[in-house]
């Protein structure tokens, strides 16, 4: 699979990572190289194979639906770059 510059820019946008023109060029080649290499998986016939969902066959545990945690707002905002009271502050999103 050949990844072109438009595709690189599209996935960078999806991943929310800003890339420069120069980086986009380099990534075209690098991502194409990696994707070409993983395409050797096409040699494997997987028509009748189930995808793996867990390596150890255990059932997920269930617990009673009750509150087990809370009242830690101070802890939660403690590491935020910008905070007002117990709110995370971000640039305005609604005009």
């Amino acid at each position: 699979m050949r990844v072109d510059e438009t595709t690189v820019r599209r996935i960078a946008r999806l991943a929310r990572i800003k890339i420069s023109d120069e980086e986009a060029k380099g990534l075209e080649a690098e991502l194409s190289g990696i994707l070409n290499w993983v395409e050797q998986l096409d040699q494997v016939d997987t028509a009748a194979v189930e995808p793996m969902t867990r390596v150890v066959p255990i059932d997920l545990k269930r617990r009673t639906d009750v509150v087990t945690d809370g009242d830690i707002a101070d802890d939660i905002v403690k590491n935020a770059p910008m905070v007002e009271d117990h709110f995370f502050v971000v640039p305005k999103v609604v005009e």
Partner: protein
Amino acid sequence: MSELTKLTIAEARDKLRKKDISATELTQAFVDAIDAANPSINAYVLPTPERALAQAKESDQRLKSGEARPLEGLPLGNKDLFCTVGVRTTACSKILDAFTPSYESTVGANLWNAGAVMLGKLNCDEFAMGSSNETSAFGPVVSPWRRNGKDGKPTADKLVPGGSSGGSSAAVAAGLCLAATATDTGGSIRQPAALTGTVGIKPTYGRCSRWGIVAFASSLDQAGPIAKTVRDAAIMLRAMASHDPKDSTSVETPVPDYEAALAQGIKGLRVGVPKEYRVEGMSKEIDKLWQDGIAWLKAAGATIHDISLPHTKYALPAYYIVAPAEASSNLARYDGVRYGLRVPGKDLIDTYENSRAAGFGKEVRRRILVGTYVLSAGYYDAYYLKAQKVRTLIKRDFDDAWKSVDLVLTPTTPSPAFAFGEKSGDPLAMYLEDIFTVTVNMAGLPGISVPAGLSAEGTPLGLQLIGKPFDEATLFRAAQAIEDAAGRFTVENRWWAADSAKPAAAKADTGNKKTKTGSKSK
């Protein structure tokens, strides 16, 4: 350097119990060793000497009053992927900035509750993505090992300690902790252990809780120890492992006394040797190492069987779909809003994009983009689903093998330690470092790397043993047989001492030494 830092966990534990030494004395020896070596080796990104000495003081009280816990007073290093309450945790990425958790990882809590002392946070590849520790935002770790030139004399080439747990492997090999925590997503415990002459075990997926460990690829990540000896690794894993309701993939099964299992020997064990690991262009010295391992296990009473794991060659490409896909999802949380680095932009999306561009290093960005691509609309089935199906086949290969063998023996790495920059220009060349280790993660199995010899350059090489799910005990028994036969491999050329101290006279004989120690029976 102090003789105390040369002790194994088992030896230090005995000396503490017999009151030959105090925990404070032992901890101080490591604090001094870190001070002297870290400027050269860069194994620690954050030493925590005050906390260590406070913990040691408490240990001394407990040792005195006869309330010693299993790891009482034993100083350890903690990979910076493990969250530590009140102590900066960065995953060696700029994006976490000065993140200071208000919680402790379950594995860490298990160790400190068992009495262990934390010396500090260890360097690693950024978000554990790398095989050389060159992607760390804190700079690379320098291996304490040096390779010899063609003339047989030591060179000054800076070698990598492996990765991603390169701070852990280097610190253990250089005597900057008794043992260290580490994590392994595709080989990040076993490959650095192999390149530094240390023992590293990645337990079965679900054996150790992943809670409080910065996530890379959640279906592959496992914690485990890097230690000086097989016995030490056994002691560490028993303390680290537990069932944890906070990690729904952690498995509720008893944790055996691995150390006690060591005495059982390996008489009658069936060891499989998979032909698919004899890869094209395998060097003669790796092949010889493998043959040595076969001979040692045979001599210790095991039987050797040729086996086939036909889908081995597809494990690495499948891994490089699954791991980036899961990483792109896990790393979506770093948005510059709730914690970590923020680089303001003209609006919210611009802020996200700026923060993530500035905060993530090159390899991490590359993997997020690959992961985003393979999960994007129209490609999910062709890549991610395909890789998960191949994964089923890889696991099936092992399930078939377990019908005729109890464990599998392979080399850990295709080559010995390389120098800085030798592989960092080409992502695919670096990815091939994991060719022998990655199958184990894909199948969720336990794997251990044991030092088994030295390369022509005088640097360590390791053998890998792969076991059945939750059968780490058998791995430790077989690893002990290899260690008994091969001896231990320790760094004798402590060049960093000369780097840090007064202009000391250069030592004439700087060769690396192999010592035959044998197992200590208790």
